[in-house]
C-alpha cells in the first residue's frame, strides 16, 4: 500500500458544500487579493484575510488540523525565504566593508517588507492547503477544466501529482532500506540523502519511459482527452449564488487593505 498524501485525501471523504468550480475560482481570486496587496500598512487586513480563510475552510468542510499541521511544517521555509531581502541587504553591506551596527544601517522598511511577505505567503499557503484539503487534487483539476484551463495543462498537473506520489513512495522505500542497514539516526540519513536523490532520479527516468509506453499502448497520440466541461449555465448559477455570499466580504477586505 502506498503512503497516502495529506494533500490528496481520498475522494470518498467529506464533500464540500459548494461545487468545486466556484470554490476554486474564489480561492484563486482571494489568493490574488492577498498576494497583490501593496504594503503591510494595516495589519488588520491580514486579520480579516485570516478570518476569511478560516470561514472558507469551514464552509468548504476542510479538516482544520491537517491544514494547521501543514502550515506549521512549511512556515519555517517561508520565513527563511521572506528574510531573504533584509539578509541579502546585510550581506551587501558586509561585502561593501561596512560593519552593520544594529538596525541603523538597515532600514526598518526591509524588515517590514519581510514581515509583509511572510504573512502574505502564509495566508496564501493557508488558502491553498484549505482548498486542497477540501476538494482533493482531482476536484481542483476538474474545476480548472470547468473554468476553461487547457486540457494539456491539467493533464500535466494530474500526471505531476501522480508522479509526486510515486516518488514519495520510492523515497519512503529507500528510507526503509537505508534504516534497515544502518544504526539509524540523522547522521546516517544525511549521509545517504545525495545517493538516494540520485537513485530516485535515475529510477524516475526509467519509469517515465515505461509510463510513456503504457500511454502509447492505450492509444495516446499527444492529444489529451478528458471529461467534458460542466455546462456554462450551471457554472454561472453557482457563481451568482456564491457572489452574493462572498463579494461583499472580498470588497471589504480589499478596501481595508488599500
Amino acid at each position: 500500500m502506498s503512503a497516502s498524501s495529506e494533500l490528496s485525501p481520498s475522494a470518498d471523504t467529506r464533500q464540500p458544500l459548494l461545487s468545486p468550480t466556484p470554490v476554486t475560482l474564489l480561492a484563486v481570486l482571494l489568493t490574488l487579493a492577498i498576494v497583490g496587496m501593496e504594503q503591510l500598512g494595516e495589519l488588520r487586513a491580514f486579520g480579516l484575510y485570516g478570518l476569511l480563510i478560516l470561514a472558507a475552510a469551514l464552509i468548504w468542510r476542510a479538516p482544520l488540523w491537517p491544514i494547521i499541521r501543514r502550515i506549521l511544517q512549511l512556515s519555517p521555509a517561508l520565513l527563511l525565504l521572506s528574510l531573504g531581502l533584509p539578509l541579502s541587504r546585510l550581506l551587501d553591506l558586509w561585502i561593501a566593508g561596512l560593519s552593520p551596527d544594529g538596525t541603523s544601517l538597515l532600514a526598518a522598511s526591509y524588515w517590514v517588507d519581510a514581515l509583509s511577505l511572510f504573512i502574505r505567503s502564509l495566508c496564501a499557503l493557508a488558502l491553498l492547503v484549505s482548498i486542497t484539503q477540501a476538494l482533493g487534487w482531482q476536484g481542483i483539476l476538474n474545476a480548472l477544466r470547468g473554468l476553461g484551463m487547457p486540457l494539456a495543462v491539467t493533464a500535466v498537473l494530474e500526471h505531476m501529482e501522480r508522479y509526486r506520489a510515486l516518488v514519495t513512495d520510492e523515497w519512503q522505500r529507500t528510507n526503509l532500506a537505508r534504516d534497515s542497514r544502518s544504526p539509524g539516526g540523522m547522521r546516517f540519513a544525511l549521509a545517504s540523502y545525495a545517493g538516494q536523490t540520485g537513485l530516485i532520479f535515475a529510477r524516475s527516468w526509467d519509469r517515465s519511459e515505461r509510463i510513456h509506453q503504457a500511454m502509447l499502448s492505450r492509444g495516446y497520440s499527444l492529444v489529451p482527452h478528458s471529461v467534458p466541461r460542466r455546462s456554462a449555465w450551471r457554472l454561472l448559477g453557482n457563481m451568482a449564488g456564491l457572489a452574493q455570499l462572498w463579494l461583499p466580504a472580498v470588497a471589504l477586505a480589499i478596501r481595508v487593505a488599500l
Partner: protein
Amino acid sequence: MTNSFPTDHPASDIIGQTSVSVNGLSFAYSEDRAVLRGVNLHVQAGRKVALLGSSGAGKSTLLLHMNGIHLPQQGRVTIGGHGVSTENLSHIRQAVGLVFQDPDDQLFHLTVEEDVAFGPRNFGLAEVAVRERVREALEAMQLVGFEQRLNQQLSFGERRRVSLATVFSMRPKVLALDEPFANLDPHMVRSLMETIRCFPGTVLLASQDILPALGCCQEIAILHQGQIVAHGPVKEIAMDRELLQRCGVDFWYLADVLDKLR
C-alpha cells in the same frame, strides 16, 4: 471474479482474426545488446500461450512488439493478419491490450475512473460510450465503487486489477500480459488465473511464475537467449525437464519440496 467480458469490437477489420504471428523478429536496444534474435511464434486465435523464459530472455521486449511500442527492426509481427506498422497502430492498439509488469507504470492518472477511461477516450469514443466501457471493465474486475478512489491509495493487488481494467475497457481481442502474477497473494493469483481462463480472446502471457501460467494457458512457448526454442501444448513442454532446466525455467524442484512434505 465475474468475467463478463464484452465481445464486440470497434476495429472491425480485425474481428475474428486475432491470431498472432511473429516471423524472424530481431530487435536490439543497441548494437551490442541484441535481445531478440529471429523469433518465430504463431498463436492461433483464441489460444492462451504462456511465454516462459529466464530473466533477460526478451519476454517483455517481445510483448512490446505485439502492441507496436517497439516496431520490428527485422522480421514481421502480424495481428489477425495485419502487419504491425506505423500506419495501423491505432487499430493494433485497440486490438491488443498490453498489461505492464508494474501497475505503477500503467496507472498514471489520479483516480481509477480516469485511468480506465483513458484508452476509450483516446480512440475517440463518445462520453456515453466511454462511461459504459468503464462500467463494464470495472464490473469485470470487481472494482465497482472504486471509480473515485485514488490509485496511490490502492493495495498492490487492487492496482493490478485496475491495470487489467484499463485494458479491458478497450475491449481487446488479444491480451498481452507481462508478469501478471508477480507479487500477488495466492488468492489473487487464483482470481487472476480465472480471469485469464475466461477471457474470450487470445492471450500471450510472459511470466516467471510458472505454475500459475501453466494453470491458465493451453500452450507454452519458451524464449531462451532471444529465440523461441520450444512451443507446444502445456503437457508436452512441461514434462521435458531437461529442456526446462537448460532454459532456466525448471519448476520440478517444487515436486521435490512436496515430496519432502509428504
